[in-house]
């Protein structure tokens, strides 16, 4: 078994599930012969044909609306938004319909769909190609929001998302699409959609993050270790529903929590984690919660973007502040 990248793991998961379940199909701009602008669907049209790998007209409203119709009539569509910044025209159909079909009809209809979205910054891309906009969906009932950060997790979570009978927004941290390779058995094993991953055990401070920041956060943990600080690292992975218990268990042990995310700080999903800490873990905390996030401004074009994003230094500094505070 050859080691594969995160994006190859996504392709592998889609191919696995399409072989297994004839109702699974893919639609989006350039997903066919071009294999998607990131090549996530590369090779699929050759294996599954143009009836199951559909290029769409260039309109995200169309993609979202067709996807709802397909899912309501027994297909399991995997829709692709080409980039994070182009998914806004999909918001209406996702919130008003995908998230509500089951609820609206008391279970008569449902909307088993996945929306795959290449997400986030750090690849020197043009405007609107670098947005961390998961917060738009986290206050919306009826959705699941998932973000993998390794090839193995990408494979298992995407399988789970496709099989899930309800709509899943599947954000793919494009910056780490090809960051490293890992062996990913093509065994069709899905991962749960409501459990965080503890990537590294530690006792002094809990670092919670998701998506591309997992790499920076693990590096920060390494750096902290050099200073004798033991950091536990949690990959949220399933943003909604939030597995707060795993975070809470960790904070009971460490008493300190740094939340790291790429989106702007205000009302980013980090706020929800910090809020639950304030509600449920106040007596466990020995230091104020810290957030290391994008600033409350638009991610700049690429000459400045790395100054916008969280960095190892910023994470280390925040962790040290929690230690200094107590």
């Amino acid at each position, binding site marked *: 078994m050859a080691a594969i990248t995160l994006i190859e793991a996504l392709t592998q998961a889609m191919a696995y599930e399409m072989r297994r379940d004839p109702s699974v199909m893919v639609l989006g701009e350039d997903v066919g012969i071009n294999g998607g602008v990131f090549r996530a669907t590369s090779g699929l049209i050759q294996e599954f044909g143009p009836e199951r790998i559909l290029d769409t007209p260039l309109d995200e409203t169309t993609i979202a609306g067709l996807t709802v119709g397909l899912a309501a*009539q027994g297909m399991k569509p995997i829709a692709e938004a080409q980039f994070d910044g182009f998914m806004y025209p999909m918001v209406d159909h996702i919130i008003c319909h995908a998230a509500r079909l089951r609820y609206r009809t008391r279970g008569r209809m*449902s909307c088993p769909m996945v929306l795959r979205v290449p997400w986030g910054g750090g690849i020197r891309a043009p405007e609107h190609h670098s947005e961390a906009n998961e917060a738009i969906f986290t206050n919306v009932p009826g959705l699941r929001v998932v973000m993998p950060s390794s090839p193995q997790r990408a494979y298992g979570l995407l399988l789970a998302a496709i099989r899930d009978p309800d709509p899943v927004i599947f954000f793919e941290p494009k910056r780490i699409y090809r960051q490293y390779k890992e062996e990913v058995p093509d065994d069709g094993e899905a991962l749960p959609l409501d459990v965080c991953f503890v990537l590294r055990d530690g006792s002094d401070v809990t670092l919670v993050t998701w998506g591309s920041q997992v790499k920076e956060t693990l590096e920060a943990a390494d750096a902290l270790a050099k200073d004798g600080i033991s950091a536990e690292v949690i990959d949220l992975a399933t943003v909604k529903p939030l597995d707060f218990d795993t975070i809470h268990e960790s904070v009971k042990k460490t008493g300190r929590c740094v939340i790291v995310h790429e989106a702007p700080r205000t009302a980013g999903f980090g706020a929800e984690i910090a809020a639950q800490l304030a509600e449920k873990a106040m007596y466990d905390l020995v230091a104020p919660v810290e957030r290391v996030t994008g600033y409350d401004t638009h991610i700049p074009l690429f000459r400045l973007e790395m100054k916008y994003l969280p960095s190892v230094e910023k994470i280390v500094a925040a962790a040290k502040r929690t230690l200094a505070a107590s």
Partner: protein
Amino acid sequence: MESGVRFEIDYLQYMDADGGIVNPDLPDFARDRTQLVDLYKEMLKVRCFDAKAVALQRTGKLGTYASCLGHEAAHIGIGTSLQIDDVFAPSYREYGAQFARGVKPREVLMYWGGDERGNDFSGPAHDFAWCVPIATQCLHAAGSALAFKLRGEARVALACVGDGGSSKTDTYAAINSAGAYGLPFVLCIINNQWAISVPRTAQTGAKTLAQKGLAGGLECLQVDGNDIIAVKAAVAHAVKRARHGHGGTVLELITYRLSDHTTADDARRYRDDEQVKAAWQREPVKRLKSYLLAQGWWSEDEETAWITESNAWADAEVDAYLATAVQPVEAMFDYLYAELPHDVAEQREQALGWEKR
């Protein structure tokens, strides 16, 4: 300048406002007494229901309600032209079409009465629920049609949208994707001249609404939407084309909203009584009645008897609606996901706790 591509939008009408036949080339069903009388009876029945629903709202027993007064020919012409395994994607007013598909009046009342169970139709389980966000249903129908095409099923998806809704981008998206994929899709633009207070003329500079279909390469036709013979002929033709893989159609059914927009609206604020009076001259029930009477296919006695019967039927539905107990509080959680996530499950318990106080 080379002359290029030409288009023509035709207009279909068989029966004029007085029930006179203007186009003697009638479709078969219109030569059949039973079929035409049945259609008439359905139209009357819906009108009886509609009046009851408005009255219920006025006495505080229903929430906001969107009347279908004046749309009977359009709605019933559509509803009776589909097969049961076709998919119907309504907006929020097409009760006549839905009754023909097995949706119960009590379900209409439950929906407008604030109870989601109204959307759990007795009719075809694959039909879409009422769709409040204007025109979004058009794309759901197109997506359904795409599912049928991909699976090789000889089924058709039909959506209704209003003259107002024809301006909405979703309508265009549905038209364009139906054309791009050659989908078994029919779009009925029910042009009742008003979108709440905005007249048809203010929605668009297009001469017809049918021509919206040209933007996606669909067949386009204007139809007298108060002439049920024309509506049925046009819809049946479009559905047949779609079913046989010949692509999608946009039908503009021209009618008039004789009521307020909904019971929350007061149309006197923005439209002339004269216009409404004139529209009553062209309304669909009266014209079909004139025709049936002229043919000797219907009588005032039958009319009276049928109205009595329809009212009794509507009353029974109203009673069933009024007798429906409110859903338990957990109903707001139990249909959110196939399996409730732990966090929401916790809130469900809290909600139950508040009930027990």
